[in-house]
């Protein structure tokens, strides 16, 4: 296991980070000006770290594919952001937040990393408040919090149902300040297509200017990837349509290890697929399960209007199966239970692929106004999309691909296995184990970006103060650019008949059916077979109109889809090797008699990190053993 040195410092949990930080080397202010850093992605992690690095005095170059950094998909996070402020005096603490996350992640995350994320969470809230983020406040003028799934305290800070947007805009403003100062240079409308390695170190990237199609070389002393998750591998997901795996994937192909690719969260409450042309599933916040009751008809294939189904003919299956937690079981459990009912033929709607989320009782008990106050904007959103009024008719919901716990393997410094290449936010694998708790993704992104990476990267860069500018005419750049150009030529030259979206949709279906909420060895193998076939078909029949020297959205899509075939393969590979059920990863072979997940701590308490060994070769698995010194491993039960 030489390859995986997690660099987790020794010492008591609560002091690991502060002690470690104190030992990190520094770059003095005069030298920082001589050092260039590339940041790819402008979500909460990317824009946050870029502005923090700019404030420190580094020369930062930031890239995003959107026309503005403000549109990164962090913007769509709804619920909130966790912090261990203990403002409610409900006995919350950094330790408790840490403990909830480790447990929620089904004991597949690193203790030290999770503790650190919890530790800096309070700084994140303070910083956002200073940046003018309009978090909800109570009448006394203090910040308000609400509770979220899987925990027993109220520690989620929020700004209506648009917390992600408000946090991102706050981060965007700090980025703008650095752009105005000249410490950060912004490159919008760029796709990162490759990472450039010189003498074993990440020294730059190759981007495609999406307006002109021009390939560009950008050099730097270190490269930070903040490129988000790969949930769009399912085609239909709650992610933005531009979200993709390509940047992280290019790093993987250049030697960075990819950890736990099969850990992908399926969110239980999304608006279901309504028609065949749908390309996006819209999330309905988890908070709805506080008052909504989930049910399906007791009769198979009951096509009656929900209002006509009497109470005794309804199956409130979550309350039936999990009496202790009822409708508030964690996301992975709720998602699987919905799938189980639909697969058994009890699903509702034209497709039979949805269940009811009913507010009838809540409205009867609390009155329509109370429900409107709590969820008004969500109800409106639902009605806008479906044309159905959820005050009078139950919502229809179904699980949808949402968040990837897996990602590039990083050490305690957030550095990948390629020296000088960092991964932060959702693009790394570090803090959520096998399942993420609500409102902790924003917390982790901002912690990584603002408070962790700016410290650890200096330690690495301290060696580079005498290096001087990295020349962009190095043969490594030439070669990387040529590889990218050849690939683009190759994909354009296919000249087939089928669109990238169509391939993506078929790919997504394979992944959803074979590597989705429930997996088994046979299905996974079948899925890999189908993926291989589809990939071959793709390279024979993809159709890309227009030129590569132009704004060409079809080319952009095709390049991303081409990577998703490979991502899908690795996901299946990883799911196959993990012969246990944990968190979002559920193997049919490993369940209890009552159909619950059965974890195998003796054999699988490790991070599975994969090394790319070439286009035809099977990737190599490395295992980073997870040591639990401070938390006792327990079975998660919600019965």
């Amino acid at each position, binding site marked *: 296991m030489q390859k995986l040195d997690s660099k987790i410092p020794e010492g008591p949990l609560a002091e690991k980070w502060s002690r470690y930080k104190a030992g990190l080397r520094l770059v003095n202010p005069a030298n920082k000006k001589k050092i260039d850093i590339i940041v790819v992605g402008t979500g909460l992690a990317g824009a946050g770290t870029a*502005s923090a690095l700019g*404030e420190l005095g580094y020369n930062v170059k930031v890239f995003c594919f959107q*026309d*503005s950094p*403000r*549109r990164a*998909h962090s*913007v*769509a996070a709804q619920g909130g952001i966790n912090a261990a402020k203990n*403002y409610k005096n409900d006995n919350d603490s950094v330790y408790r937040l840490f403990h909830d996350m480790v447990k929620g992640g089904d004991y597949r995350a690193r203790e030290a990393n999770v503790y650190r994320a919890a530790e800096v969470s309070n*700084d994140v809230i*303070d*910083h956002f*408040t*200073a940046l*003018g*983020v*309009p*978090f*909800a*406040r109570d*009448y006394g*003028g*203090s*910040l308000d919090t609400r509770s979220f799934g899987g925990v027993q305290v109220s520690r989620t800070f929020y700004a209506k149902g648009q917390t992600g*947007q408000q946090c991102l*805009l706050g981060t*965007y*403003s*700090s980025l*703008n*300040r650095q*752009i*105005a100062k000249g410490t950060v240079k*912004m490159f*919008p409308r760029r796709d990162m297509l490759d990472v450039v390695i010189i003498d074993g170190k990440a020294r730059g990237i190759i981007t495609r200017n999406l307006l002109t199609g021009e390939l560009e070389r950008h050099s730097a002393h270190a490269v930070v990837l903040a490129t988000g998750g790969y949930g769009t591998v399912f085609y239909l997901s709650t992610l*933005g*349509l531009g979200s993709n795996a390509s940047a992280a994937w290019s790093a993987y192909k250049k030697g960075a290890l990819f950890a736990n690719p099969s850990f992908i969260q399926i969110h239980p409450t999304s608006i279901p697929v*309504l*028609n065949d*042309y*749908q*390309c*996006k599933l*819209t*999330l309905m916040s988890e908070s709805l399960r506080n008052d909504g009751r989930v049910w399906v008809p007791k009769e198979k294939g009951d096509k009656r209007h929900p209002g006509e189904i009497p109470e005794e003919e309804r199956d409130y299956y979550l309350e039936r199966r999990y009496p202790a937690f009822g409708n508030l079981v964690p996301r992975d459990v709720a998602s699987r239970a919905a799938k189980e009912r639909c697969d058994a033929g009890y699903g509702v709607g034209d497709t039979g692929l949805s269940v009811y989320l009913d507010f009838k009782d809540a409205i009867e008990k609390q009155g329509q106004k109370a429900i409107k106050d709590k969820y008004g904007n969500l109800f409106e*959103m639902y009605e*806008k*999309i479906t*044309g159905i009024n959820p005050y009078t008719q139950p919502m229809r919901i179904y699980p949808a691909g949402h968040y990837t716990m897996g990602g590039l393997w990083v050490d305690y410094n957030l550095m990948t296995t390629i020296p000088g290449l960092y991964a932060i936010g959702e693009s790394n694998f570090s803090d959520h184990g096998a399942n993420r708790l609500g409102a902790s993704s924003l917390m982790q992104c901002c912690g990584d970006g*603002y*408070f962790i990476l*700016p410290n650890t990267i200096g330690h690495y860069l301290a060696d580079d103060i005498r290096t001087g500018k990295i020349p962009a005419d190095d043969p490594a750049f030439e070669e990387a650019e040529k590889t990218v150009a050849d690939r683009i030529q190759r994909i354009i030259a296919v000249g087939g008949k089928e*669109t990238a979206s169509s391939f993506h949709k078929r790919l997504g279906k394979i992944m959803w059916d074979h590597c989705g909420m429930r997996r088994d060895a046979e299905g996974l193998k079948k899925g890999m077979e189908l993926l291989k076939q589809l990939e071959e078909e793709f390279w024979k029949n993809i*159709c890309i*109109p227009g030129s590569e020297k*132009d*704004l060409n*959205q*079809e080319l952009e899509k095709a390049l991303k889809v081409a990577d998703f075939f490979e991502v899908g393969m690795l996901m299946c590979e990883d799911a196959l090797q993990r012969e246990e059920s944990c968190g979002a990863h559920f193997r049919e072979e490993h369940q209890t008699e009552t159909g619950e997940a059965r974890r195998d701590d003796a054999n699988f308490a490790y991070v599975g990190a994969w090394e790319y060994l070439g286009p035809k070769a099977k990737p190599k698995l490395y295992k980073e053993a997870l040591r639990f010194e401070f938390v006792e491993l327990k079975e998660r039960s919600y019965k």
Partner: protein
Amino acid sequence: MDFTLKIWRQKNAQTKGSFKTYPLKDVSPEMSFLEMLDYLNKQIIEQGDEPVTFEHDCREGICGSCGLYINGRPHGPMRNTTTCELHMREFKDGETIVIEPWRSRAFPVIKDLVVDRSSFERIMHAGGFISANTGTAPESNSNPISKLIADKAFDAAACIGCGACVAACQNSSAMLYAAAKIAQYAMIPQGKVEAKERVDKMVKQMDAEGFGFCSNTYGCEFDCPKGISVDFIALMNREFFSSKVCKQKQA
């Protein structure tokens, strides 16, 4: 449902564009407006032509990427709705739908329905921030803000930067966009420190970008997908005048 689509096609910024008419059959009323365009594009591509280029990303009304001028209204006929949230059930079967890009000197067309909104970015660079370095923040609750003000600041901050305000303004003015940010910060204590300087710089940049001037017709508020109020423009004006009147000369 069947539609006749009249769509602006323009190869790039240099060439002159024109309308092209596409008949589209079998559209499901459940489709969103952008899904309808995806459906059209699929057919165009399969016929061997170049698809209609338009911007989009989150498809749930929050990223602000999409923005089409549909039948004379930015984001189409529904209020408080972005283009991606608009569904075909809101149109009449057989209707002709005219789709144009945002039109403004400060938003030059890049291709088809895509415009360059970098002018919005530069307005933000000029001062759309609170100067607080990472790590300098005081404890969050050391600075209480009344709920009323906090909620108002949120209403202003809800802007998604789509540009509909400019598109809906008969003068293609960006006042609502700039005002939303200026007002958000001017209302809260953290932002007050540099409020005067901020309004000065942002307004200056806005004028330099070639946006029109406000004549208080309030079309921006009417067509803002997030329903941002023109009251914030008044607040910006107040801030602007007081910055002009009260600003001290720098030594």
